[in-house]
């Protein structure tokens, strides 16, 4: 019957249109290949050691970081917590992004805007971040924030623009007492590795499972939250 033939052809046409449409949608990730170039694990593993007993709360690190990285007022890539003991005395605990080995923030980014760089530092690509806030939600350390000026997720970058130029991160360089030490934990001869070997080090909130890479010497229990 001619009308049946028409209906069958129409159905096939519709089916193939749907098939093409669905294949195109599924193929959209191919339109933008995410480059794995330069992302293979490197030879170093950047880490920090923070000696709490050496910090006396001058906040030079905070000022240096803000100046070096244009961090807006009100949000912090690094900060210092001040604990006043009941019997007298103050303890200052510097905190920052831990550049975790298994960062929960990187896992939830829907567009692969934040990533683990080859030497372990966790970075955000400002040109890709859509500002959804999932990474900020999922950092158990409160290290991430929305940059109110750029409108993207922001955090400590370990002064990535300095450390590959033979310089130290701004906070480390500004610290007058040497409470912050930066180095390569894979290099047994680095000052950082020696400090870890010679001292009793602990991590901030290790139970998160993120495997943070900032080692604390003398972190008080009250500050471990």
């Amino acid at each position: 019957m001619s009308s049946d033939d028409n209906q069958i052809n129409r159905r096939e046409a519709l089916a193939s249109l749907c098939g093409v449409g669905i294949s195109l949608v599924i193929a959209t990730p191919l339109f933008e290949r995410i480059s794995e170039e330069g992302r293979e694990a490197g030879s170093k593993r950047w880490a920090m050691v923070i000696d709490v007993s050496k910090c006396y709360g001058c906040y030079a690190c905070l000022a240096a970081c803000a100046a070096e990285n244009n961090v807006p007022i009100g949000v912090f890539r690094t900060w210092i917590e001040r604990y006043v003991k009941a019997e007298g005395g103050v303890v200052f605990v510097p905190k920052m992004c831990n550049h975790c080995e298994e960062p929960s923030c990187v896992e939830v980014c829907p567009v692969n805007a934040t990533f683990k760089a080859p030497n372990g530092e966790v970075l955000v690509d400002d040109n890709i971040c859509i500002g959804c806030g999932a990474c900020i939600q999922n950092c158990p350390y409160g290290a991430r924030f929305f940059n109110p000026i750029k409108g993207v997720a922001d955090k400590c970058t370990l002064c990535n623009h300095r450390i590959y130029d033979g310089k130290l991160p701004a906070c480390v360089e500004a610290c007058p007492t040497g409470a912050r030490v930066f180095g390569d934990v894979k290099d047994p001869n680095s000052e950082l590795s020696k400090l870890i070997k010679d001292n009793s080090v602990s991590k901030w909130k290790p139970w998160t499972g993120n495997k943070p890479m900032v080692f604390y010497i003398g972190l008080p229990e009250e500050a471990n939250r």
Partner: protein
Amino acid sequence: MVEQFIYPNEMAQPVIWGVLIAIYPYITGLVAGSFIVSSLAYALGKTNYKKVAGIAVLLSFTLLLIAPLPLIADLKQPDRAWEIFTRPHLVPTSAYPNISPMAVFGYLLIGYIILMAIEIIFLWRADLVEKAKNGGRFRWLYRALALGAKEVSDTMLRRDKKIVAVLALIGIPLAAIFHGYVGFLFGSVKARILWATPFMAVDFLVSAIVSGIALLIVIYYAFASYAKKLDKNIIYGLAGLLAWTLLIDLALKGTDELYRTYHRTASWPYLHALKFDVMVATGLIEFIIGGAIPLVLLLIPQLRRSTPVVLLSSFLALLGVLAYRWNMVIGGQIISRTEQGLLWYAMPIFGKEGLIASLGIFAAGVLIFTVLSWIFPWDGKYATGEMGGEGK
């Protein structure tokens, strides 16, 4: 008063996901809930729900279309929203470990829109053919949407019915995943103690079905009584479904509360303060006004057969599920990531992330539903008749 300990970055930005993200799971929940009720008639042979299944499909599709709006409005870079299609985080690599639950949203949305669009077209084809025959200015539209068919024939009806049945069946797990992934997304945020439980994905889905059934009762009553075609058996049937789903919903929530209260981990004082100091009003709406009261009303058989009681219970249940979304999304962020402090949320009224924006999204839904129900008659002879199978 409990001791407060929060992080400095939480001072400037206490709550990241505001009212927009509180209404988003509400909308997707309604999508899933209404679709599952429609599939009862079209795929699972419960032909007694035929008459409401048409509205259910239209409601589901409308809400599906407005579902991305709160998400895009919440982004700080909404013009980059398309990146979720071109570079989704779906493949774990060393630089981008694990998979992001948020990344599956784009594909679920497109897949579900395609499935529903095709189901709607095949569901209403026969009715549109009749509408086209009656003439009018939009005959070309009806003819196009009916895919050019000029006559309603038995073969056409049989084939369309099979297609609808298949799509309605596939749509059930798709709807479940479409809404369930939101619950899983919240559950995947390990930094938020209120969210990081397996309970989130499950109860989000159950309360979604509660809200879907409740909305359907209200909308069906409004449309059908205006058209003087109200079939009270449908109201009673849906009321029974609502009662059972409410029961499961409250049982799940009650179990979660029981566990947290018994375990009393270090964050317990803050959970307690959240419930009884900070969010008392919305907690009351979620559990009592929108939970226990409609449940009790609907479990009493005599009251379940009274239409005003069923309507009231449906309104209350809708409010209750909205309060649940609010308490979970906003409340979850009010507990600091330290697990030992409480933050605050001041809902903006104006602006792209404010109350008016949220109401505007629902208003857009009303507009879209109006247009859709004007094109596709909710009480179409075939759509709510033969397409749903034989029998009354």
